[in-house]
């Protein structure tokens, strides 16, 4: 890794609990070590097969027997199994993938997609929220502004980043950066990955609702192209707070919902255990949202989900973002804002009857 990029990685972590290690080391550690322990119930057959392949490889090395053919066959089977399991996932299982502790987060994608990332800090009013990060970035031949929710990998970092639940100062920082981008004429990319805006006393005292509301109003008028991508969890108002965009994209296994399945279950069914039914009813999966006309594109994930292959996920994401930016750059700015207004203006399904006179 280039030394400059390495330094930027350190910068990006903002001197947080993990700043001693570059994120890639951490990732490899995660992928190989805890991965198997933390796999989801429906991922068990995949993990078993992975283990068998690993054992077979070890065995062949030890005994010097050539089992390449068998390994190849098993690897093919593994790929097939990943696809099959993914195809038949229930909405609740997809929510679990979206929340997978090894799922790539905003900074992972930023490091994989961008040649440079200059993180900017603070809302100039109260503090610097580590749950919502942002800064200048170079992506391909574009200079852009990127803002996104960020979750933590280990307990300490998770706490520092409030589990990806932003406070008002996070939303205000995001708006400050977006308005800076507008002034500089840079396109904006937002990466959404939050269970929801932070539920706490301080957040309420400092106007959580107002911070989100102001973002909705101001983002609707930004005179630069805005692309929003739900990369993991799209938790309600906390997600929408950086989600008013010209194009809304979503990863295949990400979800975007008005309320968490658990919240919905406890309100409507009066028992949290009904989240499987709630997830079904809320129509929160990527494909459901596409048919409802809320998202513009569903981005394909590598077999088994984005956590199985960060590089492929990042490549697919980058391709989609660049495609939409290049389309949006052709639209005159004044029109762009009006088209964005009309995009949200049209959302909603209702009936209007003419009263019989």
């Amino acid at each position, binding site marked *: 890794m280039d030394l400059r990029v390495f330094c930027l990685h350190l910068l990006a972590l903002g001197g947080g609990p993990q700043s001693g290690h570059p994120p890639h080391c951490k990732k490899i550690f995660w992928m190989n070590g805890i991965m198997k322990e933390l796999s989801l119930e429906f991922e068990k057959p995949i993990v078993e097969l992975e283990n068998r392949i690993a054992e077979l490889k070890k065995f062949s090395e030890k005994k010097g027997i050539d089992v390449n053919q068998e390994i190849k066959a098993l690897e093919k089977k593994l790929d097939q199994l990943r696809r099959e399991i993914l195809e038949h996932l229930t909405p609740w299982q997809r929510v679990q993938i979206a929340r997978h502790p090894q799922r790539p987060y905003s900074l992972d994608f930023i490091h994989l997609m961008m040649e440079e990332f200059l993180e900017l800090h603070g809302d100039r009013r109260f503090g610097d929220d580590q749950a919502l990060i942002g800064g200048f970035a170079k992506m391909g031949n574009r200079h852009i502004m990127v803002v996104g929710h960020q979750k933590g990998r280990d307990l300490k970092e998770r706490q520092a980043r409030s589990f990806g639940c932003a406070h008002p100062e996070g939303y205000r920082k995001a708006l400050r950066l977006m308005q800076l981008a507008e002034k500089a004429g840079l396109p904006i990319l937002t990466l959404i990955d939050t269970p929801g805006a932070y539920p706490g006393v301080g957040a309420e005292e400092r106007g959580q609702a107002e911070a989100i509301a102001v973002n909705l109003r101001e983002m609707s008028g930004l005179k630069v192209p805005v692309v929003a991508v739900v990369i993991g969890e799209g938790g309600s108002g906390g997600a929408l707070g950086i989600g008013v965009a010209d194009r809304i994209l979503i990863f295949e296994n990400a979800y975007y919902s008005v309320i968490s399945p658990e919240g919905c279950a406890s309100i409507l069914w009066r028992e949290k255990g009904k989240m499987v039914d709630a997830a079904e009813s809320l129509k929160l999966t990527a494909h459901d949202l596409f048919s409802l006309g809320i998202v513009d594109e569903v981005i394909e994930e590598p077999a088994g989900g984005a956590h199985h292959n960060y590089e492929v996920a990042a490549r697919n994401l980058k391709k989609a973002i660049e495609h939409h930016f290049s389309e949006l750059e052709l639209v005159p700015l004044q029109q762009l804002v009006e088209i964005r207004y009309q995009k949200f203006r049209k959302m*909603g399904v209702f009936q209007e009857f003419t009263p019989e006179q």
Partner: protein
Amino acid sequence: MALFKRPNFLLTQSKKRGVPGGLWTKCESCQELIYNKEWENSLKVCPKCKHHCSLSAPERIRLLVDEGTFEEFDPNLIPSDPLKFRGPKSYPEKVLQDQAMTGLKEAVMTGRGKIEGISTVLAVTDSRFIMGSMGSVVGEKITRAIEKAIEEGLHVIIVSGSGGGARMYEGCLSLMQMAKTSAALAKLSEAGLFFISVLTHPTMAGIMASFASLGDVIVAEPRALLGFTGPRVIKQTIQQELPPGFQTSEFLLAHGMIDGIVERPELKKTIAKFLNYFSWGRR
């Protein structure tokens, strides 16, 4: 065991010796019994504890708008069931039930009316209709009302009362109404027009995180519950007791989130005064 059998005469005693129907109302806060006529005269504010009981949308309009000047917009918008939501109760069932209970078609009434002679556009949510939550119809009616105000050069007043926020039954479509109404308010502001947001008990979640927080002037009725996340969820998350008066109007005033607290009998006069200031500069 005839000894332990419930004796028959108890049946006659079990009749409730409660309030004779239709004459008295019990204050939901201090349990005081108030003579119905007095209750109506005090605009459903308890004379003893000053608790402001929720008003229905038609009652609120009667309170704020000069008699005979209200013209309703879009009364014929009704919800459909885009998600085919399968809950313990189906969405159409819930809608029919609340339509019958409230006599309204949806959780918001919008229209044009005069407030002390000043023409304005008004939207009032009704917290009885699916918790006053915002689905496609509420979002559309509010957006249309704001667009009408821009067209006619009128200021907008929205009275919010919604414990529900964005309506679950319409999923992400409800969530997008937050963006839609907020974008419409951006246009209103660009047109040089003003928006007064009136917060009543309770205004939470998606309503508070969209139009309700975007007023040029924001006033609240006393002791209303106002905030983003419900107090129960916050308490569960932080595992601590909440500070006294948390998320009340008074709490928001102390934290700089609203301009003032206005008691119900003063509300119309106060709004009219604001409207006068907005119009004076543009004579």
